[in-house]
């Protein structure tokens, strides 16, 4: 996307939402390998049960990685200065996630324009899984 279009974002505008395929066990196994996070709570159902859970649960960072894509689909990566996430609820197998973002504040400092985004991931029952924020800096 060209800078002019990004420059048109106003407070209250939403970025296009990102829909994620249903979470599967193989997605978690693949993410464990790719990230190096082999905490068995995400891949071993016996361990998960021993830890008091009904089943394996998704890595929070996998969910955050989906959300990251919702931002980088719109903003050039070098414009992203801060990105954070609070993991509110566990993401389970078969959950269908949607990632959203909204511009909540804009500050201009000379030729620099800062956009503050509020971010949210929720499932198809409306349960919030993750809330986050990002700071974007555009040079005009």
């Amino acid at each position: 996307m060209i800078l002019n279009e990004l420059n048109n974002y106003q407070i209250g505008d939403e970025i296009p939402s990102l829909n994620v395929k249903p979470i599967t066990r193989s997605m978690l196994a693949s993410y464990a390998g790719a990230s190096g996070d082999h905490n068995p709570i995400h891949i071993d159902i016996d361990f998960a049960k021993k830890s008091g859970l009904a089943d394996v649960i998704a890595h929070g960072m996998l969910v955050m990685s989906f959300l990251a894509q919702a931002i980088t689909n719109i903003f050039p990566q070098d414009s992203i200065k801060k990105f954070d996430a609070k993991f509110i609820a566990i993401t389970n197998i078969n959950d269908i996630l949607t990632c959203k973002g909204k511009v909540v504040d804009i500050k201009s400092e000379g030729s620099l324009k800062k956009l503050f985004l509020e971010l949210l991931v929720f499932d198809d029952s409306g349960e919030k899984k993750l809330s986050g924020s990002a700071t974007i800096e555009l040079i005009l």
Partner: protein
Amino acid sequence: MLDQSLMGKTYPKIIFLVEKQRLKFFAKATQQSDPLYFDEDFAKRNGHPTILAPITFLTTVGYEQEKPYKYLQDLGVPIGNILHAKQEYTYYEPIYAGDKLQMESKIGKIYEKKEGTLDFISFISNYKNQKDLLVAESVSTVVIRNK
């Protein structure tokens, strides 16, 4: 009650080589659709020296050691009892395939909420590249499920 005296405890530096294949694997596992993250020719045509690391890729660096959860062991917390509560990143420089990163970490804050029923631990890291430039900082906070 967790041992508060471990706040600020530092951990040995980790050296991490950002391999092209690893970036492709990570892009696939996180379902990235932007070819900047897995197609070197595309990345070069779009002004990048090679494949770019996604903004959550730094999570992999800390796991590249024999005992990635050593700080939890030091605090006597079983790994099955923790959940990731919060993750924060501040970015300064892009990370590309071929970069050699250095990560330095320490235990940040250890605190309670809800009258001691929930314990939180934050783990603070900074990452430099082969040019000794600070590329990013992260704070990872876990919550202990007191069963």
